[in-house]
Structure formats: C-alpha cells, structure tokens
C-alpha cells in the first residue's frame, strides 16, 4: 500500500475528503473531481451515525469495481490509523527517505540467463524429442537455427494467422452491398420518401467484430531449444496484432505486451531480461495459468477471446491446479489453441500427464516449431473459419 502524500490531520471537511481521495488515488483508485463533489454534497445533507456507516458512504461513492471493493476496507482502516498518528496539518512530518532500488546482481544474472537462453541453449539439443530433420528445406528448418533474415516471412505468416483469427461474426447487422439479406426496415424507411412505393431494396449483413487475442508462452528450461523462435514469434505476433496481450511463464506469469510493442528488436531483447527474471526456469503451467485467471482473465477473456498457449506441456506443478485453470480458460473464452513445438515430430503423442489433462479443454492442438508448421496452422484455421453460432 502506498502513501505518496503525507496524511495530515485536517481541520475542515473538504480538505479531509480531498486528502482521503488522494490517498486512494495513490493506491490506484480512479477518482475524479465528480466523486469528490458527490461526497461533499452528501456530507452537507447527511451525517453518518457511526464509523461503519461513514465507511459505507465513502465506499459506495469511491469504489468502482470488485478489486477496489475488496481492498477498500483495509485501506480505510489504514488511513484512519495513519491519521490518528498524524500531527496537526501545519506540522510537517519527517519525510521517509525512499530507498533507491539498487540494481541487483540478480538482474545482471537474468540478462545472462536470457542471453544463454537465446543463443547458448542448444547443449541438450540431442536429448530433446523434437523435431524435423535439420537437412530439410528452409521451410522445414527448426527455429533453433532460425535466421533473422527469415523473420520477415515469419511476420507474414503471423499476419495471415492473426487475420484468420481477428474477426468473428456479430449478431449486429450493418448495411451491405451484397444481396444476401434484405434490410426491411431501411427498405420501408426509404420508400416513405416516395409515397410508400417500394422500388428499391436495401440489404444488410452480419457485422464482423474484432476478437481479443491472448498469447501465453512457456519460457521454461524444456522450451530452451525453441528459444529463438519463441521470442521472434512473440515479437512478430505483437507487432502484427497491436491489441494482443502477451504473457510468458515458467514458474510464474509475467505480462510482456508493453515490452514487445517496441519497434526496435534489440531494445526489446534488452528489456525482456529486466521483465522476466527466470528464463529457463522450472515449469509450473497450472500455477501460471491460475495466476492468469486470477489477475487477468476477468478483464481479458470473454466469448470473443481466443487464447493461444505455446508450450511443450511438461509440467512439474500440481495437475489439479492445471486442470482447473484450463477448464476455466476454456469456459471463459471462445477458443483455446495449443501450439506444441514437440508435436512437429510425427511420432509425438501428447502422453505426458499435463498434456493429457489439458487436451479436453483445447480446441486446436497443433505443432509450431518452424515456418512449415506455422503454415499448417493457417490451413487449420481456414477450415475452422467462424460461422455465427445461431441460424
């Protein structure tokens, strides 16, 4: 909890109300002048009978969502505790010296780990179950040896994928030039101008609406082999679809959308090391997805959302947690697409316990370890093109 502004004892009501609102703003409440005016207006007509009633009054006006609703009581208590300790508003408290967060050695280590993850993580290559032969054509080449020059082609494929996914038919209608469905209302409306003689038909069609895309990538040790591709995939996807929300996880989840939006790839790589402290860590898919559900799902997932998970499915966490998390994501979103780099191997079977548990909650399960496999993802999406869920 933050208290950027010192809490001081106030002698008049408006100053007190404003101070409390500022305190809440410091704690990420969005409070405007309108709310402050509402509070002052209420206080001129209404005297709360108790501490609890006063709290309810503030809460009704200043809280705007559930998160704030839960947090409010604690903040309110804290505010009054601070206030009771505070001196008179004229006496200034000693300001606490803010400790400058020192760049820890951990952060430097993180950069090293990311670099290793990106460029030096091929040590155990032979041990991995993947993939297509390294002697095949470029399009079948594994992304572990993916060249930056091919990034353009990757971007093109991702653009096609995102276009396939980006739209969904809405129940809303818009005017149309194609003569599929007559817009009776507009036809009649226009005929009114000509003495109710219908001599021209107007048409309508279902509106296409944007789909929310969420990309969740596994950056654990077992995915090290595909590190180069993974970073480029995330970067290209974010560049192609600006509204995409990107997350990575190994043992916990981190949002990377803002980092990946930067146009400079080198800068992105540098920033990634600051943001994700555990490249090549262990894998806790369940806990990470549960974290996504708790923090982000309510805002990001709805029936217009498609969740793309890129992981090999090797999980060392609690399988019940994984199942519940997948179940919840599947229920809240329109579609779950799982891209598994190991699935590029023709002999691969999703037989790990983690993967087996996830399969019932996956709508599309396919490989994505090189350009060729990404192209097949496009074909797959073409076959499953959206149709309205109603007649």
């Amino acid at each position, binding site marked *: 909890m933050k208290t950027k502004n010192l809490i001081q004892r106030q002698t008049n009501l408006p100053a007190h109300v404003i101070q409390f609102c500022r305190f809440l703003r410091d704690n990420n409440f969005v409070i405007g002048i309108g709310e402050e005016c*509402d509070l002052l207006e209420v206080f001129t007509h209404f005297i709360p009978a108790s501490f609890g*009633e006063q709290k309810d009054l503030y*809460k*009704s006006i200043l809280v*705007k969502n559930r998160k*704030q609703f839960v947090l409010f009581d604690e903040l309110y208590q804290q505010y009054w505790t601070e206030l009771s300790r505070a001196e008179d508003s004229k006496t200034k408290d000693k300001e606490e010296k803010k400790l400058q967060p020192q760049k820890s050695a951990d952060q430097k280590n993180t950069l090293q780990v990311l670099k290793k993850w990106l460029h030096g993580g091929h040590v155990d290559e032979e041990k991995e179950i993947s993939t297509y032969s390294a002697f095949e054509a470029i399009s079948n080449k594994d992304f572990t040896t993916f060249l930056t020059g091919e990034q353009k082609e990757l971007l093109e494929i991702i653009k096609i994928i995102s276009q396939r996914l980006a739209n969904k038919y*809405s129940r809303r209608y818009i005017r149309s030039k194609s003569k599929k469905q007559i817009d009776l209302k507009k036809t009649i409306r226009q005929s009114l101008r000509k003495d*109710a003689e219908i001599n021209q038909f107007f048409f309508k069609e279902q509106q296409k609406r944007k789909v929310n895309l969420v990309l969740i990538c596994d950056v654990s040790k077992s995915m090290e082999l595909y590190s180069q591709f993974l970073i480029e995939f995330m970067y290209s996807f974010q560049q192609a679809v600006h509204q995409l929300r990107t997350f990575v996880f190994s043992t916990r989840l981190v949002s990377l959308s803002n980092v990946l939006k930067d146009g400079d790839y080198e800068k992105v790589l540098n920033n990634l090391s600051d943001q994700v402290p555990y490249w090549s860590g262990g894998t806790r898919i369940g806990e990470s997805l549960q974290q996504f559900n708790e923090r982000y799902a309510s805002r990001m997932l709805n029936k217009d959302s498609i969740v793309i998970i890129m992981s090999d499915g090797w999980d060392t966490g609690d399988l019940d947690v994984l199942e519940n998390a997948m179940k919840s994501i599947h229920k809240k979103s329109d579609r779950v697409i799982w891209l598994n780099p190991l699935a590029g191997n023709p002999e691969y079977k999703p037989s790990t316990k983690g993967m087996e548990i996830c399969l019932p909650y996956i709508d599309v399960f396919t490989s994505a370890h090189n350009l060729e496999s990404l192209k097949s993802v496009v074909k797959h999406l073409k076959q499953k093109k959206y149709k309205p869920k109603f007649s």
Partner: protein
Amino acid sequence: MEKNKSINNIKNLLLEQSYISDDAIAMSIHLAMFLKKPLLIEGPAGVGKTEIAKVMSKALNTNLIRLQCYEGLDANQAIYEWNYQKQLLYLKMNEQADLSYNEKEETIFSDDFLMERPLLKSIMAEESQVLLIDEIDRADEEFESFFLELLSDWQITIPEVGTRKAKSIPFVIVTSNRVRELSEALRRRCLYLWIDYPTFEKELEIVQMKLPEINEKLATQICHFMEEVRQLKLEKLPGIAETIDWATALSSMHIDHLEKEIVESTLGVILKDWQDIRDAQMSLSELLDKVGVTSKMG
C-alpha cells in the same frame, strides 16, 4: 439536515417487501437516490441483485421497467423504434390527400408513430420509475455507449425529432455477473455495490422470512449445508435463490431434518452442473458430517 434515519428507512422499506438487506446495501440505495445516479450491482448469480430492483419498485409504489440485456441488443430494442408499418399505412391512406412532403414527414415522425422502448419509456414517464438494466455484461460493449448519454444527462437524442429530456429521473439499477468487464466510462457514472454470498445468519434469516412455516432445524441444516457447499471448488456455486428453492422443496415434502438420502436425491435443486453434482456426491458424507447430519446405516 437529514439524519441517518434514511438508512434505517430504506432497510425497513426493503424488509417490508421481504428483502433482508445490510448497511452497505441500504447506504448504496440511499446515495443512489440522493445523488440521482445509477447503482451498478455486481456479484455471483443468485444473490439477489435483480431482486433489489423488484422490491424497490414495490417499496416506492412505482413501475419496474426492465431491460434484459443480451448479445446483439441494439438501440431499436433498448431506446426507441419507429412504427414502420403504421407509417406505411398512413402514407398509403393519404396518397390522394393534398399534403406536402414536409407535412407528411412531420406527421409520420411524430410521437404517434414512435414506439418507446425501456430506456426512453423510463425517462418519459411523468413519475419516477425504477429502471432495471439486467445483466448488462451479456450485451456487447457497443451497447454500453447507448447508456452514457442517458446516464449522465438524462436525455436521449432522436435524430428525426431532436433531444428528449427526462420528464422524471428514474431510479436506475444496473446488474452484472461479470461475464466481461464493463467499461470505465460506465462505471464512473454509477455508484458501485458488490453483493456476495450471505453469511450463515443472514441466509437463515432470509429462509425463515421467505418460508415462515419451515422447521427451524431443517432451515438451520440447509443454511449450514449451503455454507459448506460453497467452500467446494464447483463450476457454479449455488446462490440464495437455490437455497430458497431447496428449502421450499424440502418443506413441501414435510421433511423436518436433512438425511443423506434426501440430500443426494435433491442435489439437482441446488447444483446445476453435472460435474458439480458428481463432485458434491463424492464429498457428501464429509459435508454432512460438518453440518452434523449422520446417515442412516442399513
């Protein structure tokens, strides 16, 4: 200066309509009425969000205008629509009449040809109404923008005839089950209230108020059981509505206490998902132990 009596008044008003509220609910309703702002109520399904609007309309002795939201809901269904058939008929009947184009247009775009939908209807009423916008999270985001003009300025603009200002300001209750997050613009125009599952004491009070004839032991066991069921990791947790349904069902069967067999055979009244029923059946003995019900052996 108005004293805090108003909070108790609201509690009593709700109680008269058999709705047991608490301080937070009464305060939110009081402030929404005082500030003439919509009240946005969120919470799990079946905790009594919609019921507040219903009881408030009865308590205030006014009409309840309800707009049930769904995906694809548009202005024609929520605000107003022109009666095209009637307009067409009018024009056909007056084909030979000596009326200019402007005269015809003025006539067919007048109040006689305007069909008021819930939002317009609520502000054009002479006396203040209760407007319930139910499950707004089911409507798409574009629809929220229709509300913004109404909620901030209490007016609706109809392109053909101009702006209609409210004759009376309705008491607006907006409910949401949080299927999707609502826009900040809408939230900022509303007061906010979260209603959670009730405490054991409150739920018992509700059951006894709704079903005065129910056996006290049965009511207590039901509420304890529901409290325990809500601790399970279920797909859909049962709300107060389910508790009342279950209590009504058991009471109508003249049952005066819970037994394992009865609970097992009536689980479908409180749980609406096959997997949830299965999970509850698996931990039924444990649940009943916690409630203090022992199953008959043999």
